[in-house]
């Protein structure tokens, strides 16, 4: 969005360039560091090795680590996802890349039935330390079969952890934690964020920087209304908050960081302060992340603090169209968030 780019330009002018890292580079750093740290870690997927990654996320890794650790697979999602799960069962720590999560549908049985459920079915005898990662959700102009958000589908299942980073610190810290986790993690990236640079603190640039899975982050404090989001839309929420601030409406913006287990306590604490809640996501409305947040708020202590029902801002309930004007109107825009905030506040 133009506003975000303006914000970014200003930020970039203030911050020394070498402290700005793109999400792509942050993910690359995370994998590089974990590959170096633990020889059981390896990466497999389509084009991850010699092509440097379909989206260049694994750039340079094959050159550094070779064929054994960075493996190009044929176009066989069900096969290579199963192979990755088997390797995890036998003591390795695979990172299984889906070129996009749309293709994970081919392999979803391996993710759910072979990976997610095994620790429970075996009463803890058989662990599956695996990370499934790749771009999730809408990109730009890739149309219906390549634009689905899988956060709700995977987050539905016990036995999985589902992580959805927004900025570079999130990407690096959460990917490192996911790789170190002894359980199956679905790591949902966003293609449109890969090229976006974010400031990274010195701490975040260290080799042992991790962000705990299951903890949300308050990106912006506010007192009038809570906005909860994940991935790309955190940025949209911050943009909306900047505009609303000029009108005297102070939004608290929460970056979920993890979808499952969801940090409901952070949302509740915020709602108990602001009394209003808007959820923002790119996925479809029915049975989605926002729907889950609504249900959890209703069941918990924060319900009585609400001054109005929770509002969900979501993608439009349609397969993604191709034409730009249609695509733009299929996903939450900043004006949709601003509109929803005002409606929720009844202003």
């Amino acid at each position, binding site marked *: 969005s133009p506003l975000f780019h303006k914000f970014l330009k200003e930020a970039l002018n203030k911050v020394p360039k070498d402290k700005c890292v793109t999400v792509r580079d942050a993910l690359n750093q995370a994998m590089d560091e974990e590959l170096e740290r633990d020889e059981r870690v*390896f990466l497999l997927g389509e084009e991850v090795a010699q092509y440097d990654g379909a989206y260049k996320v694994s750039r340079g890794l094959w050159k550094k680590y070779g064929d*054994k650790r960075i*493996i190009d*697979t*044929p176009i*066989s999602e*069900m*096969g*290579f*996802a*199963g*192979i*990755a*799960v*088997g*390797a*995890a*069962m*036998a*003591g*390795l720590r695979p990172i299984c890349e889906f070129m996009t999560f749309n293709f994970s549908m081919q392999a979803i*049985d*391996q993710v759910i*039935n*072979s990976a997610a459920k095994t*620790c*429970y*079915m*075996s*009463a*803890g*005898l*058989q*662990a*599956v*330390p695996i990370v499934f990662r790749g771009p999730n959700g809408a990109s730009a102009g890739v149309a219906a079969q390549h634009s689905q958000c899988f956060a709700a589908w995977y987050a539905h299942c*016990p*036995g999985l*952890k589902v992580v959805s980073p927004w900025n570079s610190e999130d990407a690096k810290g959460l990917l490192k934690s996911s790789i170190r986790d*002894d*359980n199956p993690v679905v790591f949902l990236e966003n293609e449109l964020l890969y090229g976006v640079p974010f400031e990274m603190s010195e701490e975040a640039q260290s080799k042992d920087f991790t962000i705990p899975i299951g903890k949300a982050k308050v990106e912006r404090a506010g007192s009038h209304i809570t906005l909860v989001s994940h991935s790309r839309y955190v940025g949209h929420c911050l943009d909306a908050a900047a505009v609303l601030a000029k009108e005297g409406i102070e939004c608290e913006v929460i970056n979920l960081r993890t979808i499952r*287990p969801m940090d409901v306590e952070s949302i509740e604490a915020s709602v108990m302060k602001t009394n209003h809640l808007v959820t923002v996501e790119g996925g479809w409305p029915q049975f989605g992340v926002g729907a889950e947040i609504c249900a959890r708020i209703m*069941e*918990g202590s924060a319900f009585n603090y609400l001054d109005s029902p929770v509002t969900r801002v979501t993608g439009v309930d349609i397969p993604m169209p191709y034409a730009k004007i249609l695509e733009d109107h299929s996903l939450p825009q900043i004006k949709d968030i601003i509109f929803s905030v005002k409606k929720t506040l009844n202003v």
Partner: protein
Amino acid sequence: IFSPSLLLTSIFSLTDVVSVQSGCRFFHQKCDLHRLEEGPPLKAELTRDQGLQYYRTMQTVRRMELKADQLYKQKIIRGFCHLYDGQEACAAGIEASINPTDHLITAYRAHGYTYTRGVSIKEILAELTGRKGGVAKGKGGSMHMYAPHFYGGNGIVGAQVPLGAGIALACQYQGNNQLCVTLYGDGAANQGQLFESFNMAALWKLPCIFICENNKYGMGTSVERASASIDYYKRGDFIPGIRVDGMDVLCVREATKFAADHCRSGKGPIVMELQTYRYHGHSMSDPGVSYRTREEIQEVRTKSDPISMLKERMLSNNMASVEEFKEIDVDIRKQVEEAAQFATSDPEPPLEDLCNHIFYNNPPLEVRGTNPWSKLKSVS
């Protein structure tokens, strides 16, 4: 595994046996080969100790499965129960040819392999009856039993095959000279993910023995009605294959040894088809006679039963006496009975265990129960 004993006198039969220093050498038919110049040796040596051990293993599996049948009919076992009686030579022969440090994964007809891979009869039956003393503490059931280097027990037809290839990848990666035996049935042989696994295993030369246990029926569908090609040992296409008499424990052992050598020498994967038969229906809810005749089942029982065949061989070559076999039978019956006793008297898992083991090596977490006020605890 080998403990050669002194030579026993033997009758040199016209058909297939010579006595050798340590036991007997049996000859059998040449295996059908696919993309192989040579196959497993035509002869197999069997010592008395080995023979008795294979007998004991197969008979234990047999009696355990029949006990499971009984318990199921008494409604003490519920849900899915896919019995292995008839196929014992496959599990026994394979285990005889690989090391305990090798790996094995199979589908849902898994009780036999669970036993050969080291889980006690007690823990198997108690898992079937859903008790806390079961190998998976009652959380898994018939299709989800695990042990070191044994990865179940898998309920989704064919899904275990990519898993097995992945385990083989781990062996190769770790350079430990181990291999993975990956089993599937004639029904699963038509799953696409098998061909994806074959491709990657061959491409990367994974030390994986893909074994099709062809028992002629995928649930109620005969092989002729399911597969355009019923030469399952050829279905690996560019992967060499062997077709083996799966009712003969020695054939299975020799073929698997051959396959293991192939893998360990870095030649890549190999496919084996074991021609075998199951006496029971597909599962306990299938009488097994609507798609095949009782005559067919009876014929296999009388002419090709794996346990009888081994016993007769040993008896007619004076490798053991009728009394010895009887003693073994009595002992096994006792063990199975004791295990069944345990499996029926052991308590069910405590409710506190309901939400445990969702994760491995994880701090405790809260799990939502059936209603919002029900907050359950999960430890790993």
